[in-house]
């Protein structure tokens, strides 16, 4: 009987812990973000998908990592040399993002072109409190991140 009473006493604490855990998502959340600028000198419309997590990588349609967060899918990044900007939130303390670039050929959805993992973002912008990343796709499809 005493054991049952002990159990009943401790149950509220248990549920409080679970609530705190769910509220704070396991901890490690950050308010930092990433300003991502896309320069598309490629010949056809592109789509860009950005993921944060620890670590993140693309394998045959799957994105693998912990604390995964899909921040956005940008469509029709088409204008040559235009600044296609996006802001994403870093969901952990690793300061890394996965950029997946696909083609939008108008049939059967988006097809994979390439992906880049950007680790250890270090170009912090004090004015926006965000890290800065430029993803440039040249005419051959080569991707440069800086």
């Amino acid at each position: 009987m005493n054991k049952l009473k002990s159990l009943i006493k401790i149950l509220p604490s248990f549920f409080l812990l679970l609530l705190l855990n769910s509220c704070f998502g396991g901890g490690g959340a950050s308010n930092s973000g990433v300003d991502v600028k896309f320069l598309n000198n490629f010949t056809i419309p592109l789509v860009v998908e950005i993921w944060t997590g620890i670590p993140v990588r693309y394998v045959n349609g799957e994105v693998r990592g912990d604390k995964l967060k899909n921040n956005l899918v940008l469509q029709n990044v088409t204008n040559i040399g235009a600044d296609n900007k996006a802001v994403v939130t870093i969901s952990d303390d690793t300061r890394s993002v996965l950029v997946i670039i696909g083609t939008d050929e108008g049939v059967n959805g988006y097809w994979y072109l390439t992906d880049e993992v950007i680790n250890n973002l270090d170009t912090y912008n004090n004015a926006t409190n965000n890290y800065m990343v430029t993803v440039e796709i040249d005419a051959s499809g080569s991707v440069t991140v800086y």
Partner: protein
Amino acid sequence: MLTFKNALILILLFVFFWSCESNEPGVEYSQIKPRPPLVPNSTTIRLKQPLHLGIVTRNTPFDFTFNSRAVHHASLLIFTAEPSANNRGLKDVTGICLGGATSMISSHAWDNTSLHWDATAGLSDVYVCDGANRLEPLSTSTKVAFDVSLTAGTYYWAVLGYNKYYKITHSSALYTLTVN
């Protein structure tokens, strides 16, 4: 002494920290799908550069890059036209094969990761398809003469992987390459 209450607290703490680590999935699905391999029911070989729909300049050397380390033998083939739907097993590439290289011919340079295309034929790693053997179309000695073979236009390329019995088990997607 470990009382029942203390044991219960320890168990609950364990459950809490375990849930912290496992409450977010390790795998999600991208909306951007991988291109299917050229040969149906084969395992995908990843191509890196030039990207699908990429553009190269005729007189500028470049490298085809890929990863075929997982297979016994591999070939890179450049086509002048898409293999037809009923030839996706690539049983016969006569008439559409421009050139390439393979690990199955000892005179070819093959490192499973890159193949150099050069405006100077002597510096290139790409050999012509001479049609001598419809299953193994590549010449053992004649390289692609750049000015003759690679005119401006659209080409296609893929990497094929073979098992030790020379059966295709792996293939890449078919990438389009524009030469200007």
